[in-house]
């Protein structure tokens, strides 16, 4: 399934033959608080789209709506040609298997070792129980994130950066087409953050993924983005390359870049 034409959040018409995600006028409220006030975005094949914004602007809510963890109130979410909001649970799970979601706090299963964390989706989603095949896939995924020596460790024995990497490896093992990173560098030191940013770029190269990277970390946005969308108070305030968004004189965004 493919898309024809769409507009970016700023209204520019683009050729969308390689569009993998299309969101239009997405709205979400929690009680009286409207968190998303009509967000629209496009994501193209192999593109890294950074969604930048301060805490509480609805960034995480946006990607949770994309994977169906939070039900949006209004709007369209098309992922790989499927309208996520109207899918049955079974169909939604099929779409989810093509999405990789890296959680802010990694969300590793703490009752399992690293190996078991990686084997879990293979056994349950792919029905792979052959131990040699599992070993090969696990080791490959761990090598891709540079942590093949940690297979026998438990999550509580790992540093924050290692946990992030293992979380990414667990999603990569299912060979997703789109990666969603929720605050990938939050709580990490600058050196580890840079390593995670490099990993995000290398994942795109090795797995040909398109990615949405949710962050408030300017250096992460600069290093990983092909395109940046600034989210302010639940609305896309600016969109373009990092330099273009940085150059906007929007009073809401300027302090963010000058900090």
């Amino acid at each position, binding site marked *: 399934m493919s898309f024809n034409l769409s507009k970016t959040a700023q209204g520019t018409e683009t050729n969308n033959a390689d569009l993998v995600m299309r969101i239009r006028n997405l709205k979400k409220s929690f009680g009286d608080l409207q968190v998303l006030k009509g967000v629209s975005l496009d994501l193209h094949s192999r593109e890294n789209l950074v969604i930048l914004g301060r805490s509480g602007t609805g960034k995480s809510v946006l990607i949770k709506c994309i994977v169906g963890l939070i039900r949006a109130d209004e709007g369209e979410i098309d992922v790989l040609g499927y309208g996520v909001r109207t899918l049955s649970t079974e169909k939604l*799970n099929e779409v989810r*298997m093509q999405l990789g979601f890296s959680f802010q706090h990694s969300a590793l*299963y703490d009752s399992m070792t690293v190996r078991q964390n990686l084997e879990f989706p293979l056994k*349950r989603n792919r029905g792979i129980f052959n131990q040699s095949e599992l070993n090969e896939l696990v080791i490959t995924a761990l090598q891709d994130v540079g942590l093949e020596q940690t297979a026998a460790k438990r999550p509580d024995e790992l540093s924050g950066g290692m946990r992030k990497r293992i979380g990414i490896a667990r999603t990569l093992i299912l060979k997703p087409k789109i990666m969603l990173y929720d605050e990938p560098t939050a709580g990490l030191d600058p050196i580890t953050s840079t390593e995670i940013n490099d990993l995000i770029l290398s994942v795109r190269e090795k797995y040909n993924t398109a990615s949405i990277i949710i962050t408030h970390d300017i250096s992460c946005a600069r290093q990983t983005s092909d395109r940046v969308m600034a989210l302010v108070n639940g609305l896309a305030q600016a969109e373009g390359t990092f330099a273009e968004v940085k150059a906007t004189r929007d009073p809401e965004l300027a302090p963010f870049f000058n900090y």
Partner: protein
Amino acid sequence: MKLREIFVSAESIFRFFREIIRQTFQPPVEWREVLRQCYAVGNKSFFLVGFTAFLAGVVFTRQSRPSLSSFGAESWLPSLVSQAVVRSLGPLITGLICAGKLGSNIGAELASMNVTEQIDAMEVSGTRPFSYLVVSRVIATTFMLPLLVVFADLIALYGSFLTVKLINNTSFEAYFNEVAGSIMYLDIFSSVIKATFFGFAIGFISTYAGFHSGSGTAGVGRAANAAVVTSMLFIFIIDLLALQFINLFR
């Protein structure tokens, strides 16, 4: 609590119940995980249930003997103990111990997974966490409680026998012949059915509390607490209802 919140909670509980029933009978059921949980449930409670049942058998026998002796009815002791153990003490002790041990364990474990987004991680990878985490645990507690009750009954009766033997030097055969003669099939059947409901209640309440925990570590504590307290309360309610129902057949 406002009336609207009560209705919202009731609807949430009903949906959770309906989902458990639906996924229990709709393949694929997570049999590997069910077996793992059955082992965990049995293994976690085996020793504690056995030890407590043994003590209950000994204490009940020692407390009942003087009263029966004063009426010259000491020979009724095996009959009295066996009926009390099988009809009420065994299921109740097992239910309460499992409510405490399994309820807190399941409630806290699922709440902790909820708080740390592990359940969300399963959900977004398409791995059906409800079936894996909830249905498997509810099936495991529902199946294992009756087995634990039968085990508890036997251990309690053995504790009672040892007590009687120490005092009267009664033989094993004599004691258990008396026990077998006084227990009806209805007693055993009702005990097992009651335990099945206890097991379902513990599994259902604990997984619901864990799955719907609030955020943060306080949420984990509240979930564990709610799982234990509500499970215990429901065990007494089920016990009372079961007693009323079974009396219709006596």
